[in-house]
């Protein structure tokens, strides 16, 4: 058992899987000697060599395209995009190739690659270093999109992502990279993909979130319990594509109320999809409209205003209270 922060858990998952499987290689900018700008890959180049922990030239289209080529030819590349704000040059390779290689060849070639990127706001970083655009990838058939929100889930989900036979976009909420530590046994046990994790049981309302927002959501749940005796069920979606709607639906069937929390802009965010499915499949169990507490539909502001942009405990509490008070 080691006491690990989330970014250390990422590192531990890598080390485990690289020991177990020669075909796993890491590539990205500054991941080698430097160990990644967040140190997610620290020491790995020393341990596994330059041909397995590869510093690439500065080109994200290339990083994604190389990964597709490697994956189709038997490697399991795990590529790092230094920040999600620089993932866009990789979009073409993901939507046009990674997500389609299996389908295009009827399974003759496949694309077991992972594309990782730290994402989300709240660390006072420069422009383009704080966005959350997971919804773009959630709309692409053929990929998985996975977002851990604790050290243990980072460890288990990353192992699962590497082992998955299909492409996985793995987004790491960097704001909570070092928020707190967890005891983790480095036993190589993966967590299941494609399922939500229920972090708190509750009876009055279901709070659905993922990534760093989970933490504000949990805090809001605590406060609501304390100050108003509202019992919140808290679900960490974790795999936002494909979505485990069953877990969410079952919870909402019981509670009758739901608030969705995410950092990304509201319009076209993954929250819309969850709300739409709730409205479609769970309409009869809903006592109140599904509210979404999200980033605003504006450009993620520079650091002076970023905390005003992000959903905070206060906004979540208000939304929950309004939902509870709904006639």
């Amino acid at each position, binding site marked *: 058992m080691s006491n690990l922060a989330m970014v250390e858990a990422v590192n531990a998952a890598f080390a485990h899987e690289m020991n177990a499987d020669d075909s796993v*290689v890491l590539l990205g900018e500054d991941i080698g000697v430097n160990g990644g700008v967040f140190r997610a890959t620290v020491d790995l180049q020393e341990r596994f060599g330059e*041909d397995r922990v590869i510093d*690439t*030239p500065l*080109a994200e*289209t*290339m990083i*994604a*395209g*190389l*990964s*597709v*080529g*490697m*994956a*189709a*030819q*038997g*490697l399991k*590349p795990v590529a790092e995009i230094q920040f999600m704000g620089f993932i866009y040059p990789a979009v*073409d*390779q993901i939507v*046009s*190739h990674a997500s389609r*290689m*299996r*389908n*295009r*060849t*009827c*399974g*003759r*070639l*496949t694309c077991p690659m992972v594309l990782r990127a730290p994402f989300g706001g709240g660390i006072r970083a420069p422009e383009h270093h704080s966005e959350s655009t997971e919804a773009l990838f959630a709309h692409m*058939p*053929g990929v*998985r999109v996975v977002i851990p929100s604790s050290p243990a889930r980072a460890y288990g989900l990353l192992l699962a992502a590497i082992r998955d*036979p*299909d492409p996985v976009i793995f987004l790491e909420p960097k704001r909570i990279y070092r928020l707190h530590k967890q005891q983790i046994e480095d036993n190589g046990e993966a967590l299941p993909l*494609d399922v939500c994790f229920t972090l708190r049981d509750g009876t009055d309302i279901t709070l659905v979130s993922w990534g760093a927002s989970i933490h504000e959501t949990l805090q809001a749940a605590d406060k609501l319990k304390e100050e108003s005796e509202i019992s919140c069920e808290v679900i960490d979606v974790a795999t936002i594509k*494909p*979505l*485990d*709607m*069953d877990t969410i639906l079952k919870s909402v069937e019981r509670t009758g109320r739901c608030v969705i929390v995410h950092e990304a802009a509201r319009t076209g965010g993954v929250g819309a999809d969850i709300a739409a499915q709730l409205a479609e499949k769970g309409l009869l169990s809903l006592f109140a409209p599904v509210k979404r507490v999200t980033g605003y539909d504006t450009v993620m502001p520079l650091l002076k205003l970023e905390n005003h942009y992000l959903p905070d405990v206060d906004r979540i509490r208000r939304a929950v209270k309004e939902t509870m008070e709904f006639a």
Partner: protein
Amino acid sequence: METVASFEIHYRQYLNAEGRAVDELPEFAKDADVLQRFYRDMVLTRTFDKRAIALQRTGRLGTYASSLGQEATYTGLGHAMQPRDVLAPSYREHGTCFVRGVPMSDILLYWGGDERGMAFEKAKDDFPVSVPIATHVLHAAGAAYAFKYRKEPRVAVAVCGDGGTSKGDFYESINVAGVWVLPCVFMVVNNQWAISVPRAKQSRSETLAQKAVAAGIPGEQVDGNDVIVVKDRVEVALTKARQGGGPTLIEALTYRRHDHTTADDASRYRSRQELESEKKKDPIERLKHYLIAEGAWGEDQDRQLSRECEGEVDAAVDQYLNTEPRAPETMFDNLYESLPTLYQNQREELQAKWKRHE
């Protein structure tokens, strides 16, 4: 002022447009059997091409990209590669695929709108057709990395057009292949046109071969209508790459004689004269003249070959047209290794609808 680097780009040709050797031929080309095989493969490609266009015109094939006039490049490339090498094609390299053992019926199936056409069993590590220009050039570099990493004596070959060299992906590929000394060959098929855009409007560079300079790798030009020089120079590059010598960029100068695809009408943007003068450089005629002059070919053999090729193509077309259609719901079957629960009801919905309509 100090000169810190200098470069030269070379052009090579063995057989000129009239089919006369302008230089001493490489060893392999002294074997008439070998050249006859090349000739045969070029004729087969052209026969296939005509038929595919006819199928498209009669509504039995989707959009199709002809390789008329470019057969030497594709055949020469196919013969330079070893079976375990890997091809990352764009969408016009049927000729190369045939040499590598891909059945003509599969190519028809794909362009007929059926994914199963890319599930071929020969050359089974080859990449599928790639429609988005130059994107696949990166796959070749990734594949080459895998070969190098596993210490396999294999080379990845990417093929793209003159238009493709304008895209960033192309450049990023040659650059990374250079710096990582990857076993890669970049084949730029300069057929002078990217749909309606002539070569001169793609780049001010005097040659496309010199794009290699930006990546610090060797680049050269060959006459892409001379199957001998294509096979020879690609093989040299492959051998070098296989031995750890790193990548090479080869620009094959040829000409796209047909419309861009069956969806295009080239008469809108280029002159008859240009086309006529390019016809004189025909790769098939050229080799035929050479073989005849060498006493290694005759008109009877030629007619016989035509009949054989037609027969092979007939058989492939039959097989294609008689392929059992896929059930609609199979569109879900290769999305993931196993279909996630969330999408299973969509598959079922589609299946149910299809059953209702049958």
